[in-house]
């Protein structure tokens, strides 16, 4: 499917900003490559085309070429191209990363493969463990040993280092990871090996040492993070250089910026130092966009739900800010709760937006199992063979087929006619595979698939809200992705949420998020100790030093010094605990007694998150964190009005809204039709190119000033 909106066909004039910088967001997913160009707040071109997995840059070249050919923007007007990419994740999922080696402390080369030994599932005789990214034969040990405080117990044996590097050279490795026990406390041994390696192996080999990217205690997590960085490094480097070449070939001189997993962007050079920091690049952009929306709402707490063909992703936004975590696994596929079920992938403890992902999307297969349970996902029909309704060979009923059966999705075609829908086949599949075994009518079965899918997605939402002591009922649900707005009302019902916002271009929302994402450098410093034993001066000094470094790096990366803001936080826990809670420090509190400020904030946060706290128990400081941030010059999400996109919704269709409401004769309208109508009660279907939204009975819909669809529950 290739679908494109050339600039001339778009009629948007309400937010034109003269001479504003043009930014282009490019989001590559497994199925689609989405490109959005904006001048100021004005969208000046969108392209959605099929990704080109052989070489993802092909689709970018193609898409940008079309965008420029449309003539609404000139290459030299472009100030930044911001890219969200799955290249790092794919390298891991598909086992196509670099041939890497690991040099580590003698006696511990199996730390990487032993992992935390716990398995992510119970009761499964047939479990298989993910193979290590560096096999045992290339995990090399050298004699050296540090103590937890960083003092040297056994000096580094440089002869052994030379021998190990000789083996690396002989094995023609492309990347080297270096991780020694307790190197977070003293990086000298790692530094020495890194220097020797860079000298011996030459610049063609990507060398990364653990203290450079994660100076934090816990050997498996640090080793794994370092190895992931080495494994994806050469692949990411080659890929990004290719994209930079593509931009040059099109006459775009603007810098290429990359979205990191934590929601901030960095330039090419900076990203190539920690390429593992971009694994959740794509999903992060949507959440950043969501946060921007949340800041304009009455309550700035929100939950984003991003749903496409195979998975649904949920994230929590508090006070307009994204929530982050360092506990993440790459290559884990799908996880219900990012924190409890570990071991599916490879530990990667770099800051990442806290996203809970679950295997339920439009392509999720629906089955009635041996004991009569109706189940949706986690298996997916993917884009090939896809849902039965797409007529590409899919035979098993999917969520999309249920949505067609219900009447939520057009029975004739979607994506502006690009994808024909075979509604008879969809209904027949739902009827034969689900309705008959359950002994219900087809539309009841379809409703069942819809409700069960929403229940599964609700678990993802709970994993980032109620699991952390946050009440979702106080949040707005921001729904995007091709299917997000279809599922949102049911998920909202499950959680007691009363307001849903669907931004313009929901199907290209991640690309929009890229345009507004800030530039960001996040730095962490391990400062382990009993909080009460630390002085205000020490903490202040460390924070200042981190801030200065982050600021410097951001300036080197092209940000203007006066535009940089600094955000401070600390990770704390009760002595004896293993998991920290992050506590923010407002800049205006930096001169106060930080020990007292942090302690008080920690007790509160612990009570809020876990439902208990203890003022008597000693509190440990684990690390300090600083984020230096320069906001995007485009501070508001691009607006987009589908006024004249040639969209011709079908008028009226019969839609089944569950056993109580039954079949309703439902108007199918466009966003701009809704604008003309004003606030309208459900049932309504709002159909647009890249997504469909449903407004069930009991909800009312309106369009706000930024062309966002707002659904409010009436009962």
């Amino acid at each position, binding site marked *: 499917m290739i679908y494109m909106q050339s600039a001339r066909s778009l009629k948007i004039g309400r937010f034109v900003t003269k001479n504003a910088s043009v930014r282009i967001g490019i989001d590559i997913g497994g199925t689609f490559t989405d490109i959005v160009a904006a001048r100021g707040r004005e969208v000046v071109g969108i392209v959605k085309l099929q990704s080109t997995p052989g070489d993802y840059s092909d689709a970018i070249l193609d898409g940008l070429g079309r965008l420029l050919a449309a003539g609404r923007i000139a290459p030299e007007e472009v100030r930044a191209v911001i890219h969200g990419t799955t290249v790092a994740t794919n390298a891991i999922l598909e086992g196509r990363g670099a041939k890497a080696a690991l040099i580590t402390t003698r*006696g*511990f080369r*199996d*730390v990487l*493969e*032993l*992992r*935390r*030994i*716990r*398995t*992510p599932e*119970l*009761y*499964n*005789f047939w479990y*298989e*463990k993910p193979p290590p990214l560096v*096999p*045992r*034969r290339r995990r090399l040990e050298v004699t050296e040993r540090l103590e*937890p405080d960083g003092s040297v117990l056994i000096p580094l044996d440089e002869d052994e280092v030379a021998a190990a590097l000789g083996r690396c050279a002989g094995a023609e490795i492309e990347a080297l990871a270096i991780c020694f*026990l*307790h190197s977070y406390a003293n990086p000298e041994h790692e530094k020495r090996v890194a220097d020797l390696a860079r000298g011996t192996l030459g610049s063609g080999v990507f060398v990364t040492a653990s203290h450079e990217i994660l100076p934090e*205690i*816990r*050997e*498996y997590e640090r080793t794994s993070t370092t190895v992931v960085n080495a494994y994806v490094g050469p692949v990411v480097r080659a890929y990004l250089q290719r994209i930079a070449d593509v931009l040059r070939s099109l006459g775009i001189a603007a810098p290429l910026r990359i979205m990191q997993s934590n929601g901030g962007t960095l330039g090419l050079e900076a990203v190539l130092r920690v390429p593992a920091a971009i694994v959740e690049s794509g999903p992060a952009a949507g959440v950043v966009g969501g946060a921007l929306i949340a800041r304009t709402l009455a309550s700035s707490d929100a939950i984003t739900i991003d749903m496409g063909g195979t998975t649904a992703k949920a994230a929590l936004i508090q006070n307009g800010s994204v929530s982050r975590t360092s506990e993440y696994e790459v290559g884990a596929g799908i996880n*219900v709760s990012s*924190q*409890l*079920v570990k071991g599916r992938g490879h530990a990667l403890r770099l800051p990442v937006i806290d996203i809970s992902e679950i295997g339920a999307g439009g392509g999720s297969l629906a089955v009635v199992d*041996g*004991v009569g*349970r*109706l189940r949706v996902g986690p298996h997916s029909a993917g884009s090939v063979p896809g849902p039965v309704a797409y007529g590409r060979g899919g035979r098993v009923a999917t969520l999309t087929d249920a949505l067609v059966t219900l009447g939520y999705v057009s029975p004739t075609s979607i994506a502006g006619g690009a994808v024909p829908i075979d509604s008879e086949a969809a209904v027949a599949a739902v009827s034969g595979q689900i309705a008959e075994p*359950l*002994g*219900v009518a087809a539309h009841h079965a379809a409703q*069942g698939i819809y*409700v*069960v899918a929403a*229940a*599964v997605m*609700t678990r993802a939402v709970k994993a980032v809200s*109620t*699991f952390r002591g946050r009440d979702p009922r106080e949040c707005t649900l921001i729904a995007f992705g091709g299917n997000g707005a279809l599922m949102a009302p049911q998920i909202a019902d*499950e959680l007691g949420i009363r307001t849903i916002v669907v931004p313009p271009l929901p199907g290209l929302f991640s690309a929009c998020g890229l345009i507004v994402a800030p530039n960001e450098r996040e730095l962490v410093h391990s400062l382990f100790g009993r909080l009460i034993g630390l002085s205000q001066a020490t903490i202040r000094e460390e924070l200042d030093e981190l801030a200065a470094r982050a600021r410097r790096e951001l300036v080197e990366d092209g940000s203007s010094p006066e535009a940089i803001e600094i955000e401070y936080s600390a990770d704390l826990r*009760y*002595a*004896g*605990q*293993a998991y920290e809670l992050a506590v923010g420090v407002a800049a205006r509190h930096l001169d106060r007694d930080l020990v007292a400020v942090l302690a008080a904030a920690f007790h509160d946060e*612990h009570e809020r998150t*876990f*439902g*208990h706290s*203890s003022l008597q*128990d000693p509190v440990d400081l684990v690390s300090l964190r600083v984020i230096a941030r320069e906001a995007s010059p485009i501070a508001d999400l691009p607006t987009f009005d589908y006024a004249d996109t040639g969209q011709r919704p079908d008028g009226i269709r019969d839609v089944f809204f569950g*056993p109580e409401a039954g079949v309703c004769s439902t108007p199918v309208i466009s966003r701009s039709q809704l604008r003309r109508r004003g606030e309208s009660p459900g049932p309504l279907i709002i159909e647009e190119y890249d997504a469909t939204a449903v407004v069930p009975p009991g909800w009312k819909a309106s369009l706000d000033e930024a062309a966002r669809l707002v659904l409010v529950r009436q009962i």
Partner: protein
Amino acid sequence: MSGRDQITLEVIKNRLDSVADQIALVLMRSAYSPIVRDSLDYSTAVCDRNGRFVAQGLTTALHLGSFPYAMRNLIGKARSGMRPGDIFIFNDPYGSGGMHLPDIYLVKPVFVDDEVEGYSTALVHHADIGGIAPGAMAVYATEIFQEGLRIPLMKLFAEGEPNQTVFDFISANVRIPRHVIGDLRAQVAGIRRGEQGLLEIIGRYGARNFDEFCSALHEMSETAMRTVIAAIPDGDYDYTDFIDGLGEKPEPIRFQVRLRVRGSDVDLDWEGTAAQVPAAINAPIPFIYSASYLAFRCLAGHEIPNAEGYTVPISVKAPTGTIVNPTPPAAANARGIVGFRAFDTVLGALSKAVPGKIPAGSEGGAINFGVGGRIDGEAYVFGETTMGAWGGRSDRDGIDGAANLAANQSNQPIELIEAENPLRILQYGYVKDSGGAGQHRGGLSILRQYRFLADGLLTFRSDRRSVLPAGRSDGLPGTPNLNLLDDGNGAIRTLPVLPMEGYAVRSGDIFSQFVPGAGGYGHPFARDPMAVLEDVLDEKISRDYALLFYGVVLDGDRLDPDRTASLRRDRPVFPNTSHLELLWKEMVGLIPELHCSAPFEAAREG
């Protein structure tokens, strides 16, 4: 149940699973002791109004089947006295429904309109419970009175008010009260979260409907289990396994089970199992229920709903006075080993009933290691479990370095151990040439080596040195455990698997513990020679081992296909401990100070 209800049921099931996970998460993230927060030695369950579990968190599998027994006991004794705001506490295996003293159960009845409509529960293995040795792993306790604080069934909170007397009693009886009380607090917070979740569900569907849906979940779960059992040919299946035995001169301790499969019911009879012993490895009956259920739960696959209904077709009989159903005052703190062995025994019997569906023997369960003492007057207690070798399977290898299916606990970060305890870990890794050879080989043995940096008392529990993890279908058995203490005075001492004493260790002493390697599946000569080559290149087996046990000839780093084929023309019968010679060489390589001969004279296949 109508199709429409079926849909609601699936929604409720998702909600219940979410509640159980949430209890588990609060515990994991806010607990104070490594054994809870890192090893995840705890379990959570959500129960219906009859105390039958309808969801469980993804935690310690071998605990999960103990809830039915505990809940029946609780409801039988305390149902009429329950008030909103109550939280019950117990750990005593004799009369209160517990398993062993470190495992403290907390149960919160969930009230709606003055009626109990469900229970939110969590069971946590606490870091210390007092008793004869720090960390509660003293095998040599002979009576439960030596094992620490017995908590009979009582209220920790009465109508929302904490029972300070109980808290004070616990604080006064444990070595590290701040940790134990901190963990108890996390446990309370966890089940309170669970209560909120359960109330939300009941509020939404109504108590009566909720109860009906719970019944439907049980039915569904029971039906699924019946389908699995019905697929097993009717018949009696016997299996015998052993724990090596106690102390310096171990006598094998026998496990005997008979599975009687009739239609969709199965009956597990433990008649013939050894009498209880004067040591801390007796397992009160709930643990045997749990081990028996677990084996069938695994056979059924992991997608069966986690509701108590699946236990209905499985009945368990264990004669009183045996190690699997001891009478008071039998000691029980280190009873985990009996659960692991009972699980292995049931799997052995099932391997006869449904060949191809049961893996070869694993490492035999978690090894417990504990050390404690005082530094400058302050108590320290450190405990952890080591494990991690899965047996070969009929279509794939076993696993190197994955937690035992029955325990699924994490290892603890070495850097945290060293930062918080007077210990240094000297080695942690695989042992080459270990595990059982097979078409699908068993997981490798793992060495964990500790140096003590303070004086203290060492206790541990291990097994599988003489009776090795079972190979299946001509696969070789696994390889033995070994515990070595080097006190710097010359000879390294080989310590027994289940020591009947604690060892006073001095700062500087080194303790090395080898986790057994797992059994192989299928004849080794049937193994893909390329897989053998990969193992050689990965230094998981030696070239000699490849030649001797796999009949694979290598030419440098390449396979010599012709010589391999000619060597593999016949399939030899390997004496089943012949692979221990090469292993011993490897062990000596890892611990150069070892000068004795291989202490494996008693080794044999189970």
